[in-house]
């Protein structure tokens, strides 16, 4: 019955809504948000940081000409020089080169975990929000259970099972573990925005024109409920990078010869009394990267949230 009412309402308001020309409107939500963002220094700082780290991950050779694996004990804790602006660590490796090359593993894990998280979250959230009833009830219980699992503890148990030391397998394992445990918040966000989007006139209009469930979901509802989830995923990307570093720090995430900030922080920590540079440099890289993604997501959310304007 309510569906018929919605359809009727769509018929009534359809003419008006359809005639509104987007270009003629004074400002769209996105336009407003962009105007806000342009004037926000935090947005620009975090964007520059994100781009810098991405460039570092893609082309580490642009930032340093030293080989991060070239370690000589003779240079142990040696000061700056020879293209190494921060000197050398306990093993005699170039601290700066290692920090630069560490960006790749971090960003790979962060980006792919966020991507996988997005895929799982969108599928689950869309199905739960669109079909409602028992599908929603069942999927929401699954979300509740996964949300109730502490991420770090579960990741420890899962990664302990991976005995392979091959760098690629470990990276893939970390990505999957983080995505399997971390998709719930994004799924809840998608679910609630799908629930509000499915009441809209354009959905009723698409249904009337004969669009099936699949078409309505992916072509009409999804593009309109994607914005909040992108913000959540940007912030999640930052926290996935932090989680990867934490797992590597504990010795169950990535392992040498992969270069990870977490591994270097752990090594630097052990020898902090002799020289703290090897602790401070990778720590700074990690903290700035995580902060950049979180601040970027925060700035975009603030710009898109009309309540704060």
């Amino acid at each position, binding site marked *: 019955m309510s569906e018929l009412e919605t359809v009727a309402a769509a018929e009534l308001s359809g003419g008006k809504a359809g005639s509104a020309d987007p270009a003629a409107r004074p400002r769209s939500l996105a336009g407003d948000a962009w105007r806000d963002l342009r004037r926000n220094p935090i947005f620009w700082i975090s964007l520059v940081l994100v781009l810098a780290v991405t460039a570092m991950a893609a082309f580490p050779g642009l930032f340093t000409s030293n080989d991060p694996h070239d370690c000589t004990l003779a240079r142990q804790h040696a000061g700056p020089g020879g293209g190494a602006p921060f000197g050398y660590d306990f093993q005699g490796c170039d601290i700066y080169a290692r920090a630069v090359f560490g960006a790749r593993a971090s960003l790979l894990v962060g980006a792919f975990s966020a991507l996988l998280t997005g895929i799982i979250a969108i599928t689950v959230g869309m199905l739960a929000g669109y079909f409602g009833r028992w599908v929603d009830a069942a999927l929401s219980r699954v979300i509740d259970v996964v949300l109730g*699992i502490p991420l770090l503890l579960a990741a420890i148990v899962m990664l302990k099972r991976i005995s392979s030391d091959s760098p690629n397998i470990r990276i893939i394992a970390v990505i999957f573990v983080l995505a399997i445990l971390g998709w719930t918040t994004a799924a809840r966000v998608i679910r609630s925005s799908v629930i509000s989007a499915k009441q809209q006139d354009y959905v009723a209009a698409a249904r009337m024109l004969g669009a099936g469930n699949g078409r309505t979901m992916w072509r009409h509802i999804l593009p309109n409920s994607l914005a909040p989830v992108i913000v959540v995923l940007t912030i999640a990307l930052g926290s996935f990078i932090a989680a990867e570093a934490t797992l590597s720090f504990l010795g169950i995430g990535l392992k040498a010869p992969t270069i990870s900030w*977490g591994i270097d922080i752990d090594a630097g920590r052990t020898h902090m009394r002799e020289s703290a540079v090897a602790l401070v440099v990778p720590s700074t890289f990690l903290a700035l990267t995580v902060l950049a993604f979180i601040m970027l997501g925060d700035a975009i959310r603030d710009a898109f949230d009309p309540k704060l304007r």
Partner: protein
Amino acid sequence: MFRYIVRRLLQMVLAFFGTTLIVYALMFAGQGDPIQALAGERPVSAAQRAYLTEKFHLDQTGIGGFFYRYFDYVGNLLRGDLGDSLTGRKIGDMLAQAWPVTVKLAIIGLLVAILVGVTAGVIAGLRRGGIFDNATLALTLLVLGIPTIVLAPLAQYFLGVKLPLFPPTAGAEPSIYALLLPGIVLGSLSLATALRLTRTSVAENLRSDYVRTAKAKGMSVRRIVSVHVLRNSLIPVITFLGVELGNLMSGAIITEGVFNIPGVGFNLFRGIRTEDGPLVVGLVSVLVVVYLVSNLVVDVLYAVLDPRIRYE
């Protein structure tokens, strides 16, 4: 209310079995040799192998054998029998020794979060948009963005080694003073969240009708804020801090590892490093149960504290 508690309990039972099944399946079952998986990279002697086979009923095969062993494990867990670590010590004894330290640390972290976070949050909420508000917002973003593996070693280095204000590590019988710096590091994340939560909820309540009524009646601002606004604003903060207590106890792995505090997290940290499978599973199982129970208590507390919230 009663129905809500029952439903929430059933949900927790579901979560308990879900989580323990995952933990169990990942640790003991699956492909390969479970005993070798348990021992990690260390060689297993024939005597150990025979002992473990008998202990975990590994001679029974198939899916029935798996569930037999799983229920055996859950039964032992519920009876409080966590088995032995690979070093031969009883995990229950290790836990009994470590638990008070972790609770002490978590309470210090929580106190720091309440004292600093709630106070600063109230001030920021009262003067929304002011310098103090903007400064604390930026600061909390910074704290939320810096991972513990960065914060803990750096705090240890700068405040423990470089500027010896605090003892850099705690040792076997830690004093409250030795636990202060780790407590602050551990509590900083909850501090930032508590601050933001208090700020938002104070600012929201200041705009509400009852505040206007109180003002109209001629009440002093001090009384409005300290009696009416605070009481209503702290409901979400209290529930958050309740969840946090569970989080702090299970999340102290890094902090306890870095500061060498002999708590549960430290034992887990060492268990991971020494490839002590049974120890890791035992501790993780207990921590998960603590986490689930604290979430349950807080959810029920929420319903009791705020009668406006109706649960179907």
